């Protein structure tokens, strides 16, 4: 059952990605990407990462992409239907490069020895069972990864200030 679901959502994700890359209109591109993100969130759930799925929907699809949409509307780009895809040579080069990337990464993925099975899924499920889904992430986050967590908050502060400053009109 989950396998079938996985396949459905996987094809939706791929379809969304293809649409993002090939659409002329920026808005259409963005909407396809939203579809892709939702599918990926569903796949997260299938893989047992409930919290991450929720964060994906809330932050990524909900905040970041909406921000993108706002910028598109701000810059009034929605009306331009001229194609901005590069010429034939670039297409060929890009496709070849992308193909090579895919093959390079995937070929190492299919080797059984490359990924040791350390019983991750079981431990995650056990943690979710014990604490809830949020707690399962929160515990390593605040315990083992406390310093990166604090640094990330500083990063966000800097990003906020930077974004405001950069986008300000001349004073």
């Amino acid at each position, binding site marked *: 059952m989950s396998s079938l679901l996985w396949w459905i959502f996987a094809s939706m994700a791929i379809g969304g990605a293809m649409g993002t890359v090939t659409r002329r209109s920026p808005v259409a591109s963005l909407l396809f990407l939203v579809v892709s993100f939702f599918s990926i969130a569903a796949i997260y759930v299938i893989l047992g990462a409930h919290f991450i799925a929720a964060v994906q929907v809330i932050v990524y699809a909900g905040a970041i992409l909406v921000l993108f949409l706002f910028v598109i509307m701000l810059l009034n780009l929605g009306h331009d239907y001229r194609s901005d895809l*590069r010429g034939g040579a*670039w297409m060929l*080069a*890009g496709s070849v*490069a*992308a193909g*090579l*990337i895919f093959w*390079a*990464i995937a*070929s*190492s993925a299919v080797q059984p020895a490359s990924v040791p099975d350390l019983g991750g899924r079981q431990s995650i499920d056990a943690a979710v069972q014990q604490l809830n889904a949020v707690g399962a992430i929160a515990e390593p986050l605040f315990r083992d990864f406390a310093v990166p967590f604090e640094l990330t908050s500083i990063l966000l502060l800097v990003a906020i200030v930077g974004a405001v400053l950069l986008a300000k009109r001349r004073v």
Partner: protein
Amino acid sequence: MEAFHPTLLWAIVLLPLVGFAVNGLTAFAAPDRKSIPTWIGPGVVGLAFVIAVSSFFGMRAAGVEEPVVQTLWQWIAVGGLRIDAALQLDALSIVMTLVVTGVGFLIHVFSVGYMREDAGYARYFAYLNLFVFFMLLLVLGSSFPLMFVGWEGVGLCSYLLIGFWFADREKADAGKKAFIVNRIGDFGFLIAMFMLYANIGSLDFVTVFAQAPATFAYGGAAVTAITLFLFLGATGKSAQIPLYVWLPDAMAGPTPVSALIHAATMVTGGVYLVARAGVLFSLAPISSVVVTGVGALTALFAATIGLMQYDIKKVLAYSTVSQLGYMFIGVGAGAYAAGIFHLMTHAFFKALLFLGSGAVIHSMHEAFHHTHKDWDAQDMRNMGGLRHHMPITWVTMWIATLAIAGVWPFAGFFSKDEIIWQVGAHAVGPFAAWYRVYWVLALTAAVLTAFYMTRLMVLTFHGENRSGDAERKHLHEVSPVMWVPLAVLAGLATVGGWLNVPEAISETPVLGWLPGSEWLHEWLHPVTEAADGLAAANGVSVVDAAPFGGGEVLWAVLSVALALGTIMVAASVIGRRKYRPATESPAPRGFAAVLYHKWYVDEIYDIVVVRPVLAISRSLSRIVDGFLIDGTVNGAGYVSRAFGWVGSRMQTGQVNTYAFALVGGVLIVIALVVFG
């Protein structure tokens, strides 16, 4: 005998250099101050002569047998090669030094009168002094490289002096020709030095000649090659076949230069080289035959050309080439003392002949200058009957002519006779036939010598004067500063031969009524004994008879008779012929034209050597230099710019491109990690 320390040996060499410096400065700063070069120029050479004479007497008193080497400083010390700046004083070098400084001094004095009107007076004496410096270095150097320094230096000074009036294109070209042809010979000298160093490991005369008999096999390839290359250098410097072509052209220089450089001193450098390297030549009989042969052939060849020349200096130039051939006959046949003897006597009478002709040219030039006639002052067809106008010159030049023709008791008789006798006496052993041929050639050349010299005298001094009526009034004898050296040289040409009267002759009546006997032979014995001993040890013997019979005395008398007879025949033949001035004379025809045009040797050289070399260098310049080298260098620049252009194409300033490059880089890294 006590050890002999020559005093002021270095001063002999240094004085002319000082003279060069002073005169050169004068030429730069005050070219019109004629008094400085007048005194400094001849003065330094005269002073050097005095020191040389005192060294000579010192040597005689001390009875020096071994060469005295005075090292001044260490010049080159590289690896195993050690060459010092050192002067070698021995019997041979002192003789050469006396000749160079003595005759040089007389010529310097003559030049004071000859060059008085010239604007380059100071420059002339500067070059002349520099020349004497280099020549002394050549004869006094104690090693082959030092001799080579002098060798090259006299070549340089020859170029400077031949092209003295460099504004005239022809004269400048003559200087170039001399230098370039000399260079060909110098190449031979260098190769010989390299081979000597490779075989013996040293280049000092003392060391080389001591070790040569042990190092080289008699008649072996190594020593034959070395000596032949040395002789190549000698043919360049001493104007033998095939490298004689520069000497007639060198007559473009002032006449005293021709007297000093191309008669008495520089051209004798080759003879000195062969005599100095006598040890090597006696180890290589084939080279000796070659040297003698080239000398004999040149003697005859040049004499034939001299028969038909009309320029007085050209006749003397070819005469010099011919007499140098005699010297090489002497030293080639192993008679080193005879060759050096002829060198000495030739210096006397040839310098006298050149200076005398210089006096004639000086007078003719003045006469034509007065009447603004643009005739050639050196063409004998424009002269004639000058004995009435220039008696001192006439008498002294006749003395020189008798000397060069080999008439007893003048100097040339003894030296030339001895050479002819020696080459005949060596006609035994494996090369007997060759030496017999050379003997015949030498005799023939002697006859021709007497003929063309008489022709010169008759055309110039006897008969009717053809210069023109207006000019005749201006012809007069030269000033004392010019005819006193002539008189001194005439005296030397008379008594100079009495230094070395062969035993056979000094015992005969009439011919032997002379003071002195084989003095030069004995004096040079310490230098030549090594070579003579080697020759004797290797089976070279000497007979006491001429090739076709007869003793020394008989042939001496015969040669005098032959010379006198030729003179009389020539005088009557030439005297009877009617000559017209040069502009009205017909061009020579037939065989005479061939002789007049010097057997077309210059033209042949031009076609065979000069034009192909020029063509090759032009094509090399176009192909190798223009196309290959410039192409490579420009191509390298072009390739760098092309690389730069390609590289710049990658800087599009666009993110997409950079992202693409990033992806490419990632792929490469992954490939390296996964598959590496």
